[in-house]
């Protein structure tokens, strides 16, 4: 399956990954419109964390044994049978935040507009995840493995 690998030594903390993730998951798909009108309605699935000189971009690890799937009380959080990605079916999510409680990475956030869990969906259907495609420094790269 596709996996996103972060290299913190190359990350310059520019947060372009966050912006492009937001655009990719916006209704308009236009950077200016999305940033201006939809910024408060979406949280990016990738978050840049920064402390002093160190920064890195982090999104859902799509764990092989995902605690969020185990803790999800509705069955909304599930593994996509085709790709192996961990996805949240927002139609079934009721926003109980059990997934947030058990994610050791902190990769799941409360959706600001809809009361549902929001996280990285690996941009399935696209050639490259938006964060990877738009990282200027190859600090986040895509790898495929057969697992």
């Amino acid at each position, binding site marked *: 399956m596709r*996996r996103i*690998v*972060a*290299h*913190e030594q190359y990350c310059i903390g520019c947060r372009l990954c966050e912006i492009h993730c937001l655009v990719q998951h916006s209704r308009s798909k236009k950077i200016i419109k999305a940033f201006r009108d939809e910024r408060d309605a979406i949280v990016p699935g990738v*978050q840049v*964390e*920064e*402390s002093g000189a*160190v*920064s*890195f971009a*982090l999104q859902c*690890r*799509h*764990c*092989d044994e995902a*605690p969020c799937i*185990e*803790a999800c*009380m*509705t*069955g909304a959080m599930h593994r996509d049978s085709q790709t192996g990605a961990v996805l949240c079916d927002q139609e*079934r999510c*009721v*926003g*109980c*935040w*059990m*997934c*947030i*409680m*058990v*994610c*050791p*990475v*902190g990769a*799941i*956030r*409360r959706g600001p507009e809809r009361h549902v869990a929001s996280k990285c969906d690996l941009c399935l259907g696209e050639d490259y995840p938006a964060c990877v495609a738009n990282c200027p420094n190859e600090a986040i790269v895509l*790898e495929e*493995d057969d*697992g």
Partner: protein
Amino acid sequence: MDRAPYMIIGNSVAAVAAVTGIRGTDRERPVTVIAREPHHTYSRPLISYLLGGAVDEAAMLYRAPDFYEKNGVVALLGVEVVRVHPDERTVETSDGRTLGFERLLIATGGRPIVPGDVPGTDAEGVFTFTCWDDARSIAAYVEQEGVKRAVVVGGGLIGLKSMEALVRLGIETTVVELADRILGATFDRKASELARRRLEGAGVSVRCETTVTHIRASRGKVTGVTLRDGGRVPCELVILAIGVVPDTGLVRDSGIRTGRGIVVDDTMRTSVEGIYAAGDVAEAADLFTGEKRTIPIFPNAYRQGLIAGCNMAGGRRTYAGGLAMNSVEVLGLPTISVGVTDPDGEGCEVLSDLDEEGPVYKKVVLKGGRVVGAIFVGDVDRAGIITGLIRERVDVSEFRDVLLTDDFGLISLPREYRKHVVSGKGIVV
């Protein structure tokens, strides 16, 4: 006798996880699921959302309608197992059948407690609230009787989730709690107070340090309750939410070891070979102390069921121990509590941060350099990172001061730990 290779009693989260666990090891041999309730596998915690109208009946299913078919499950639904006979390797059902098994999982969950010493619990309009049919019955009763006022007995998680549903239905609700605060089992005093304030702000009356001594009825239907302090609260509906006990009746005097629940080892096996237990009925080791106790929460039930299923099918997995944790929104106020939240001395140290206005309240409990518990109210987004530190018993002495800061994140943690949590298969940093 034809024996089921795998028999599971129960059909909720632990049972579903067990099917998944079995199928991870054995794709072939059929699994028999026997459950008292007639429903397809459904999400029990969703019953309060159903009652409150936040989800519809179709949303109740926990797994897709073809779950049984896809997993080779023979489901006997609406059938109750009344006895387990370990020596004969059989179970006895409510419809008079005797069914044989090779491996058995008991995942019967809990039964709600109905106080025996309170007159009037048999009146119409008195309900417990733990299953789909309860939600349906309450909804029908509310509709049919035009219920305007309700009393919820018990200020724990079930009590508060039922209260929330009733508030959504526009019903004037009173919560009666025996202890001096609501959510006392999972919260500390401050978090309880913030939750109480949220309830009262929504017009809910909270009566602590008292209990219902008498449920009054007229023509068989509830008209109100009398409290221990003599006060009376008129109402047309009473929900009893004083607790749940492990449903162990089917193994009584069977030789299977029980305490409060059915005692299991770290493979989820009971005292009898080939017989396992998982979920709210199981008494398994505590993560911190190793002592056996029941921790009836959803994620533990899943994990235990998965492990039991794997081991039943000949795999080998062990349970690291249960950690109490709850995530519950109280009338829109998100809260998460994990582990020890209200230490009574014992060498614990507390770090906390409170913004009364938000409200936002965060607290971590430290013991011997490690985090053993935490509470988050209002802002829960980073709670999982703390849960991870608790579970992995990470020594936080070097960076304890950042645990409650606003920009706390994975980056606040030592590089080695960071690498550990983000490095799944194929993941490097």
